[in-house]
């Protein structure tokens, strides 16, 4: 059996990639994908721990998170669509209206 630490390590790596992608990339779709990546990294960690302690609750939670993520993608993509329509751009830096 693969030790739980491997999963956690993988999860950590995925999460870090997500964070870096979120911070560095400008393309709003990529940013959005990075967010999803972080979410899935967290899912991975949860399910790994759940399996390790033999709890079903963790696995159920992951299902819940996946459904919510699906819904979120729906909303998120819709927002991106609107953003593109308004700004004719997919660059996040163009959405800087909320500043001083």
């Amino acid at each position, binding site marked *: 059996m693969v030790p739980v630490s491997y999963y956690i390590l993988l999860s950590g790596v995925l999460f870090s990639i997500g964070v870096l992608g*979120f911070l560095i990339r400008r393309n709003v779709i990529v940013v959005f994908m990075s967010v999803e990546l972080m979410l899935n990294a967290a899912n991975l960690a949860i399910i790994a721990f759940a399996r390790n302690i033999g709890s079903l609750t963790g696995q159920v939670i992951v299902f819940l998170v996946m459904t919510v993520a699906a819904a979120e993608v729906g909303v998120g993509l819709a927002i991106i669509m609107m953003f593109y329509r308004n700004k004719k751009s997919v660059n996040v830096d163009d*959405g800087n209206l909320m500043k001083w």
Partner: protein
Amino acid sequence: MIDNIWLVPLLPLLGFLINGIFGRKLGKNLVSWIGCGSVGLSFLISVKVFFELLSLPAEQRIFEKIVFPWIYSGFFKVNISFLLDPLSGVMLLVVTGVGFLIHVYSVGYMYEDNGFSRFFSFLNLFIFSMLMLVLANNFLLLYLGWEAVGLCSYLLIGFWYEKKSASDAAKKAFIVNRIGDFGFALGVMLIFWTFGGLNYTEVFQQAPSILVAGGGLVTAITLLLFMGAVGKSAQIPLYVWLPDAMEGPTPVSALIHAATMVTAGVYMMARCHILYELAPFTLGLVAVIGAVTAIYTASIAMVQNDIKRVLAYSTISQLGYMFLGCGVGAFAAGIFHLMTHAFFKALLFLGAGSVMHALSGELNMQKMGGLKGKIPVTFWTVFAAVLAISGIPLFSGFFSKDEILWKAFSQGNLLLWLIGVICAGMTAFYMFRLLFLTFFGKSRVDESIKSHIHESPKIMTVPLMILAILSVLGGYVGIPKSLGGGNNFEHFLSSVFGEKEMIIHHSAFTEYIVMIISIGVALAGIFFAYRFYISKPELPKSLAEKYNFPYRVLLNKYYVDEFYFKIIVNPLLKFATFLWQFIDIRIIDGTANGLAGMVNWFGGIGRKIQTGYVRNYALGMVLGVILVLAYFILK
């Protein structure tokens, strides 16, 4: 009837309400019937009441009637209630009687005016207020009347409100009066906290036991009340409003600024004579202010050219006499002069009104002259009044003025007496100057007006004639003992003022001498007036040029108005602007806005963090997570 004394003020009040609310729809005839009728009825009731009072034995001539409770607060209890005694009885007759005549006169005088109904409603309101003042049985109700007559005076002076000078004069009158009332109100409060009540009977009965004669408390009370009298009766230093008050219609000047309202101060002091007699210092001050005012304003009156202003200054001067009378303790004489003055001064004003009526509103005496034959009724009635005010024997003014002078003399106030006598001469001078300039000599009337000079209608001349009769005969109720009379007037009032044992240092002979001196001075005044304005009409002009400076000072009324403006009014307005612009806007609002500004400034620094870039916020989040983690790991 005496029990229904409340009807006397109620009727004019009703007249005021009816004319005030419906006046525009009633038509001038009905308005004048209501206006005059209500006052006439109150006069009839007053006469009836007065005779009922007379029929009582002297010591029972005091009657109180509580109408309804007014203000009760704890042990402070004041009613709307009336007091009738010989003093208020006399005042009642003067107010309603003279008031009625002036109402009738006004029907003719004001007939062409647009504000006819407004005028009559205000006049009725005035009579109501004056009656409240006179009939009150406590100080607070007196104060109500006191301020209410001030209001009516304000309304009537500013009757022709479209003239700036009229509305200025009205405002000035009210404010100057309020300055006096300020003292009066404080006096009333001091009385309340001293005696625990404001009823006359309560206060006057307790006064000798509670107050120390000549003590600080009674002096303070009397001085404060006197301040009110100074304002209302236009004495130095608050006399400045009365000459300006001549902006009002002439009947108003006759009624309010000659016969009734301005004498309220004298009435009040007579009413409170018990307090004043306990305060010799105040009495002294009253006498001095009265005498100084009398001579000071008489000097101004000698050079004025506006017929009504002459009469206004003369009124102030005569009021000074009354104060002098009160000041030397001769309250009955003060009231006596008040009454005769009401007759002849009202007559003079109405006569002046009649002259103005004839000359299409001309006020300047330099543009009159030679009217004697053209308006004979006016001339003869005014002549009677001039004789009365100048103190010519057998006319009413002689008896009352002489009474005051004699009392001053017999009290040993020789200086005050001397001022009074000189002032009598000046009075005779300026009154005859008025008479000569107006009715004698060559006509200096503008050509345009000359053709339609006419005598006033009957409705105006009949009141003049009645007042003329009163001016001549009014003095006979108080012929002094030395002249073979019984001094009935003083005797009648004695139940109010007490029968004072005048210490007789002087024989009847001295009294004759004193009398003859004042007659002589008056005749001298007349002589000078005759010389200046009849026999040598060019003399005044050359004198004025020769003594230019004193003449200018007199003509400009000693520059007192200008002085008040410079010293009081303007600095006050400047100070108010300073308070508003500096304290309010700069300091208080500045502090508040400054605080808001500071918050704003801090916010301005903080908001730089908000770049609007999503990743900056995300970086912040990441850094935050790292910090939290670091804290837990390193702990």
